[in-house]
């Protein structure tokens, strides 16, 4: 799913994204745009599975959470760089680290869904989606978690940005997968190892899934390099 600036602005107002525990006004104000988009995508994935994204989250309590946002924290960083040059250290928000570091998104999902399984951020780079897939498959195949909630996202277009400012036209695209080990229609492992596994390819694979329950599957297999 893709959200534009107006969508994102609306999500910053209560009740915020429909996914897990309601975020308070402070969290809505400070969390990253990609965090908002990923929570919406995850809520949609739960709905596709026939779950209520606000209440029925207990079954995921021991699952892993893997978040692979691309260029996470960009908007806040641009503002922060402008402020530190203009105002010095006191101009920097204490919310920068908790909300805009690479670990912040997986931690936020873990918190709002009350998930006690491991949570980790992955990538941050242009290959974030591929790295997130590899990290998720690693968790699944080592059989340390019953399943993995994977989210990955990017800022569409990636316009040049200026310190102290941020392009108003920025859109965010996010994908959420609910993954468990089992036979499935897509060999995610082969995809994750392939250099042509672009974000667009991931979106098209997700779009090609016909039944919601297929979202719970991926094919396990041998190594592909």
């Amino acid at each position, binding site marked *: 799913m893709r959200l534009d600036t107006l969508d994102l602005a609306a999500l910053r107002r209560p009740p915020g994204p429909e996914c897990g525990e309601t975020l308070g006004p402070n969290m809505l104000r400070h969390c990253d745009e990609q965090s908002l988009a990923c929570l919406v995508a995850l809520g949609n994935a739960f709905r596709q599975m026939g779950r209520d994204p606000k209440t029925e989250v207990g079954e995921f309590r021991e699952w892993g959470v893997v978040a692979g946002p691309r260029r996470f924290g960009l908007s806040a*960083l641009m503002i*922060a760089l402008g402020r530190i040059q203009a105002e010095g250290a006191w101009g*920097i928000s204490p919310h920068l680290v908790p909300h805009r570091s690479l670990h912040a998104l997986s931690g936020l999902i*873990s918190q709002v869904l009350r998930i006690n399984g491991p949570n980790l951020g992955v990538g941050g780079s242009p290959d974030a989606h591929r790295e997130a897939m590899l990290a998720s498959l690693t968790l699944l195949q080592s059989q340390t978690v019953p399943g993995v909630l994977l989210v990955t996202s990017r800022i569409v277009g990636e*316009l040049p940005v200026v*310190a102290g400012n941020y392009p108003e036209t920025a859109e965010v695209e996010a994908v959420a997968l609910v993954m468990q080990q089992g036979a499935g229609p897509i060999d995610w492992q082969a995809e994750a190892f392939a250099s042509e596994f672009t974000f667009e390819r991931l979106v098209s694979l997700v779009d090609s899934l016909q039944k919601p329950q297929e979202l719970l599957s991926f094919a396990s297999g041998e190594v592909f*390099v």
Partner: protein
Amino acid sequence: MNPSSAVWITGIGTWSAAGGDLASVNQTLLSGRSTIAPITRFGVENHPSQIGGSFDSVPCPAGEDAEGFARLPRLEKLVRHCCSQALHHSGLFARRKELRIGVVLGIGVESILLWEEEGHNHSVETWQPILYEESMLERTRKWLHLSGPGITVAAACASGNVALSQARAWLRQGWVDVCLAGACDAAVSPLSLAAFGNLRALSRRNSAPRAASRPFDKDRDGFVLSEGGAVFVLERADDARRRSASAFAEIAGYGAASDAHHLVIPSPDPGPASVAVQRALDDARINANEVDYINAHATSTPVGDAAEARVLHKVLGAAVQTVPVSSTKSITGHLLNAAAAFEVLACIGAMQANALPPTINLDQIDSECALCHVANQTREKRVKVAMSNSFGFGGSNTSLVLRAVA
């Protein structure tokens, strides 16, 4: 592939204010000599915390073009130095093109650090994302001619432990022949210092830098920002034996769990972190009383140190009276994303020296942190099994068990 086959550390690369190899780092830690000093690389006049564990430069790896290396961002220099040194140390550098070598690096805020550095050092006001189409990880893989998969992971202070666990899994699953795993952070920057300072997470004991990092001490007032890196070469034990490689430790156990409580504050309930520690013990198939040394996460924050003490009481039970615990962050400060990997180095050092590094500045133990402390003085002890706890922002709790290789 055997999902439980042993995985060994057979090479080490590191750089920090504490030293540039295992021997020098161990000497620093066992001497209990603080590496914290006033920050002089940039102006800190208006920062609430003005001290850190920093360094001026990173050595250029052998064979690298010195001028090209000098132009690299600070974080990338660290990554290249640590990866290259680890491969050389393992004796696999010359064979790196023929082996399928993967890379798992704990790096928390690559883009932020790179953009910040560019902005501050070169007064660049406009950032062109297109110039960053290739990640630092990809550039490093290409520079080293590595053909295995690579990822960067971020679990805040726990990133290094996560990286080692992922690399161990890749080796066990047969995805790679060898894996570089560890973490680097170049966090002593104006933005980090300001952000953590304004979060009130940092010590403000600016007039006494060496006394500022004081985990478990009653008068602790926050952690001290630090930076550096530690990257390890991991191999399946069978492969390492076959080539008669030197082994520094086995990655024997790993556990992880999330607080699901708060983005910054550790859970007052020791339950989730205890689960992580217990999972590491179970994974290593040992009991708590078989641990010879615990390198604590303890960063010197009032809340975090007490929370970890509660976790250790819960997991260790009666053994909490006898299992020695220290926090080497008292000496080095907090290397953030690189902390967990660096503290693996401290555990290996303890195994090699049969001596435990102390928690320095532990003048008056906080009553909420009653543990079997190695306070202020190095203690001689044979270390066959060491545990390293790392708990991060975002509620990430991890624990790693290392076993000496006979």
